[in-house]
């Protein structure tokens, strides 16, 4: 896939301008990820040049924070919250169910690129635990049954 790398220049310019006193580095990475869905190496190289830092520095930051992804997601991105409240209300069983159902492990993408699976530390909706997010949308009080319905019907 050809990437439109000109966007990277705009992103860097904009964030440099907006930042009063904070470093624009992390905001730039965040916006690149919002634009492309992940951090493609070409985009990182271009951003590093524009920012005047080495690619090593930029990659060091990108690999430190959980938010940044160095590979693309599936069409449907599923995140299981594994915070404390979700954990005691059965999140590990949900993770196992999804891994079995999708035939991938956490952090992987299905072969047809249709699904990717991740866990989150806590999405802060503890009162309706366990919670999963499908493409950013919250689903509370999850059960394994609801998960199979979701995958087999709604996301087909």
């Amino acid at each position, binding site marked *: 896939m050809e990437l439109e790398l000109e966007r990277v220049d705009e992103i860097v310019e904009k964030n440099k301008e907006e*930042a*009063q*006193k*904070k*470093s*624009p*580095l*992390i*905001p730039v*990475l*965040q916006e690149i990820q919002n634009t492309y869905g992940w951090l493609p190496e070409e985009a990182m190289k271009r951003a590093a040049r524009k920012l005047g830092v080495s690619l090593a520095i930029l990659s*060091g*930051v990108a690999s*430190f*924070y*959980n*938010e*940044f992804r160095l590979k693309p997601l599936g069409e449907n991105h599923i995140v299981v919250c*594994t*915070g*404390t*409240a979700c*954990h*005691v*209300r*059965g999140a590990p*069983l949900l993770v*196992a*169910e999804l891994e*079995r159902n999708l035939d991938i492990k956490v952090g992987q993408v299905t072969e047809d690129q249709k699904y990717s699976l991740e866990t*989150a*530390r*806590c*999405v*802060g*909706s*503890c*009162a*309706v*635990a366990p*919670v999963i997010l499908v493409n950013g949308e*919250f*689903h*509370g009080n999850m*059960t*394994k*049954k609801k998960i199979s319905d979701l995958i087999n019907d709604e996301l087909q």
Partner: protein
Amino acid sequence: MAKIASPKDLEQYQKRAKAARDKIETFITMCGGTGCQGSGCQEVINEMDNKLAEKELQESISLKVTGCQGFCEKGPLMVVRPAGNFYCNIQPDDVEEIIEKTVLKGESISRLEYQDPKTEEHILKEEDIPFYQNQERVVFKNNGFISPTKIEDYFSVDGYSGLAEALYNMSQEEIIEEVVNSGLRGRGGGGFPTGQKWKFTHQEDSNPKYVICNSDEGDPGAYMDRSILEGNPHLVLEGMMIGAYAIGASLGFIYVRAEYPLAVKHINIAIEQAREWGLLGEDILGSGFSFDVEIMEGAGAFICGEETALMASIEGKRGMPRPKPPFPANSGLWGQPTNINNVETFGNVPLIIKNGADWFNSIGTENSKGSKIFSLVGKVNNTGLIEVPMGITLREIVFDVGGGIPGGKEVKAVQSGGPSGGCIPKDLLDIPVDFDRLSEVGSIMGSGGLVVMDEDTCMVDVAKFFLDFTQDESCGECPPCRIGTRRMLEILNRITSGEGKEGDIELLERLGEDIIDTSLCGLGQTAPNPVISTIQYFKDEYEAHIYDKSCPAGVCQDLIYYNIIEEECRACDRCRRVCPVEAIEGEPGGNPYILHDDICIRCGNCIEECPFSAIEIVPGQKE
């Protein structure tokens, strides 16, 4: 728009906002917090908007979408004011009836009323529901009344009066003195006296100085800060402004998790509004004081809740902490004096300035003043956000506010303080909740997560859960934390998978102590707490795992097995059909089914599916 140029101006706007509010006969407040959004409140809000427009009622009835009202479990929530009818679990189909019956005729709708799970009694008003009745809402007070995206709403509850008071009637020293006298301690976890922190930063000569609002709420199981930012962002801004004026800072940062999109949105709107109205920027309220705020979205690293790591992150670096001293008050962001407080701490500040230190002092215990917001979650009936006076007992929180444990189970422990805290056993539920007592029993106040655990929760598994978390979130800088937490996790993994051996408990204790003593920052210094406190109070569970190869709570998969109770099985075939690994054998209508333990992966499908409760979890390994 005209900027507010003086305290007199502000008063005028407050009066106008109150008059506009009082003119509306009926207003409906709908919770729009993240919890209720997860339960589908947006559809109800849209439907309400449509219906009010259809019936041409928008003039006389106002729909207010507020921030989190706390009772997340019952969402979507609605209160029809001034009558005060409280409705929960509302669906879009209910809207027509609510308008026709309750709003227009004042009749209550029985099926939407709150029903007390203990007495089964219907309760009509919010203030009569035990969950709310037993709280003391100070910081959270206006969350259910104001729209977080309207600055006028904040004016209508005397918003920014604290700032005017501080700028015009108090010197910097007097403000700091007032905060010192109030006894306010940091709500982010450490509990350091806020006034002292301000004093240190104030005393520094070097300029510029910065204030930072720490909203990197990373503790799993806690979401107080998010709900304050979502529901009342101007309160936090006002607190930051007062703090900035007191220490002499002209720029502030709000470091907020990117995982909280609604909070980010609301605080951004609030900053824009404050700038438009002249409450941020040059010469605020005509006082000569200038201040502005920048938002920094965190990129998902638990360690960035630690103040030196947080500052490194604003500087665009990997979020690694550094040794203290020098403290941020002396050398913080970009090497300049910096004051960092948590969201809830800043939320208390305007109230202290408005109502005085003595008022604040009258709530709480000797060394822990004021109220505290907790997220009460886990195995408890009423989950949600609660604000209670310091000194309330854990038992009151779990049983009076929380309504007890679901399913008639027994409470086993309450976990406080997240990954840095400990598990408090049920024998100690009568201790008052304050900074000192919680640390005496081996836990900490932390930022306010309270996770209730019942008899089905395995304490070794809980300890492993937290260690897995801290081990993963350790930034890797200092070896005790980087390697030590990993070694502890390996031992816990061994114990929970049936490979535990004699000496493991002692080894965990020794490792834990060493990590606490030698780690660089707060993460490592507290990471062993969940393990040490569970060994202290639940040693028998560790021993059962190690010596009996059994998980008494029925959680650890390698130390339990599933069993079909012959007498209960009706050979309905449901369990066999849901088993993903064909571990169950039998003929429909024939003999009781057989479960092959060597194939079973303990996924729980069959237990969930069985209508006769014929499948049980047995602690131990099958012979």
